[in-house]
């Protein structure tokens, strides 16, 4: 405990010295995030310096081993770092699917060579990753994927198509599920990593109902992937995928939390005019949001203690995303006809309405709410035939 207090004091001083005022202002949207990667345009020098300072200490991934570019911090030190960052409103220095998804999977399933090759780049924000899971026509049935990887001796030849690839048009590398065998549905899937600049890779942005295009369709036409870029064994990619999906669900449920916990109560923040029925809905939402905030803390503490049920991220993902959708329904209604404007400067180009539409995907992406409920019914409630 004394050590922790020392660490806290040092951390506070270091953050004070290295985190500029600009990096202590809240991010207004995903666009303000630092995504890193080969082609990333830093929004400012402050943003670049903050990433470099944090990456220099391994604090973009504080709990990863230091030999892979991490901070090597203990759980309590990691917690202290987060608390001290939160205390001064420090921005996350690097937003990255490499950190939140691929990294944990590589730490668990990667070869030593893969860890040494990929993890430090992720930690420093040099390579931006995207995720090649979903395919057209597969939807919730992820394992029904058709993208083929043929064994060509020293490499695989990949052909097929992915969809819902987040920021594929801005990513440097992809972690990708491919079919290497038709013998069994789940047992014929492999997990490959490859460069998006490989010949034969192309992307096309998907325009969403919000008007934005954060996702792409991604096409593979005879893409060569060296065999040392296979993670875990051939035909065992589903194991890696499931592990990683668990992390994704945690992250999404955490985002749901972030969407409401940091901000003030809706019933206090919003002017609803003379609409007591809406006021009633806001009051009930606040109860549910605060209760879910407690649940998130409880879940994280159980995770840390190794006591969380393996299916519990599904519960969190379900509850968190449904809550976030409800939150945005309320924000839209509270805004009245002002919030329906789509292109005016007054409405910040329709931010309320576009954010509201965006949240409708929360309960679809990363496994639909129906899929999550099915997982809870089967694995926690042990209901038959679920």
């Amino acid at each position, binding site marked *: 405990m004394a050590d922790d207090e020392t660490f806290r004091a040092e951390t506070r001083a270091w953050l004070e010295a290295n985190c500029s005022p600009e990096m202590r202002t809240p991010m207004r949207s995903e666009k303000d995030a630092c995504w890193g990667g080969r082609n990333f345009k830093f929004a400012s020098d402050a943003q670049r310096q903050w990433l470099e300072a944090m990456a220099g200490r391994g604090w973009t991934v504080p709990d990863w081993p230091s030999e892979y570019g991490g901070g090597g911090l203990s759980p309590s030190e990691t917690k202290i770092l987060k608390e001290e960052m939160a205390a001064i409103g420090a921005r996350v220095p690097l937003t990255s699917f490499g950190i939140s998804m691929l990294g944990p999977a590589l730490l668990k399933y990667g070869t030593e060579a893969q860890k040494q090759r990929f993890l430090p780049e992720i930690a420093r924000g040099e390579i931006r990753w995207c995720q090649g899971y979903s395919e057209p026509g597969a939807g919730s049935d992820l394992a029904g994927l058709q993208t083929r990887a043929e064994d060509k001796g020293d490499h695989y030849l990949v052909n097929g198509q992915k969809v819902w690839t987040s920021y594929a048009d801005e990513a440097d590398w992809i972690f990708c599920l491919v079919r290497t065998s038709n013998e069994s549905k789940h047992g014929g899937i492999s997990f490959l990593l490859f460069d998006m600049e490989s010949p034969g890779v192309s992307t096309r942005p998907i325009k969403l109902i919000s008007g934005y295009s954060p996702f792409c369709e991604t096409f593979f036409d005879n893409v060569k992937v060296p065999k040392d870029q296979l993670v875990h064994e051939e035909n065992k990619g589903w194991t890696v995928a499931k592990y990683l999906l668990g992390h994704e669900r945690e992250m999404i449920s955490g985002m749901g939390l972030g969407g409401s916990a940091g901000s003030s109560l809706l019933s206090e923040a919003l002017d609803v005019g*003379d609409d007591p029925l809406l006021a009633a809905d806001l009051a009930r939402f606040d109860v549910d949001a605060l209760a879910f905030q407690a649940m998130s803390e409880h879940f994280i503490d159980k995770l840390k203690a190794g006591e969380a049920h393996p299916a519990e991220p599904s519960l969190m993902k379900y509850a968190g995303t449904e809550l976030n959708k409800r939150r945005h329904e309320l924000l839209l209604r509270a805004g009245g006809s002002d919030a329906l404007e789509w292109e005016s400067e007054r409405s910040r180009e329709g931010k309320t309405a576009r954010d509201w539409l965006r949240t409708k*995907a929360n309960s679809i992406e990363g496994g639909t709410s129906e899929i999550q409920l099915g997982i809870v019914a089967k694995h926690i409630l042990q209901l038959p035939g679920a």
Partner: protein
Amino acid sequence: MLKLNDDQQMLLDTVRPFMADEGRIETQLRHWRDKGCPDGFGHGLWERFGQLGLSGILIPESAGGSGLGQVEANVVLEEIGRNLTPSPFLTTAVTAVRAIEGTPHAERWFPGIVEGKTVAAIALDEGPRHDPAGTAMEARRSGNGFTLNGSKQFVVHGRSADFFIVAARSGGSAGEREGITLFAVPRDAKGLELENVTLADSSKAARLDFDEVAVDADAVIGEVDGGWNLLRRALRAGRAGAASELVGIAAGAFAMTNDYLRERKQFGREIGSFQALQHRAAHLYSEIEIARAATLKAAQLIDEEHGDAERFTAVAKAKAGSVARLAVQEAVQMHGGIGMTDEHDVGFYMKRQAVMDELFGRPSFHARHLGKD
């Protein structure tokens, strides 16, 4: 009989294929949106409404209209909702016609409406929430007429309007029903500034600024200080009509979803065979049927000038709004990722629902007042 009579059924049998063909998303809503049309609808289709006798549906036969009632107008509006057809029908042919009928303004504007050439817009809301009694815009007597000062928003089809029906306060104070006067203000009135605003559903609803806009005494619709009753009559028609459009939106989104449930396969079977989705679909269907019955009842009561007309109009708007909200949410969720893409039509239903939910008062407004405001 709380069902369509034979004549109304015949009208439906005409309007349904017409709207599904000429009013469909591909050729109207998506078309005009992608073209960046500043009106948000096609004047050609509005003239077709005129040729088919739809734009003059509520206008007496003596004035060249079809002389029909709210039930018939709602038949048209449900099909408009089902196809998300952009048109000035609700504001012009229903709401504005009810506002000016029986006044000298009818003689001036009805012929153009009957032809599907004239467009009218309702300038009522002054803040983000519908609140007719809260009208505060100033109508100051000056000379032979009035001078108007203030601003209006959510004026649907404002840019396309040939004239505005403007509610302003000539007496009393905000919150009171007495003292409101309705004016017919031409679009080229001096001192009137218009900002054309695109809404989430790609429709257009202007914001208006009145800066010392002078109007003659004959711009007054009905009685000075006595606009409340005319406004109520117009809003009753507009709200019942909006309810019907919302029922159409719900039914259209549901039909698209039910088809998808029957066709789309996952895990080796149609997703519509999953019982959890079946029960949600059946519940939603039940709610839509109830909303439609409530809306039909409201329309019948309006046509009968029944004392319960206001209450059931409020019920219809509240119920149809809530049901349509559930319908579009379920539609998008059940479509999964494809429903989130602009390429698919189902997202249009969600956007349109949000706008119609707010127009002429949201469900919570009507649930609270139940026709008393």
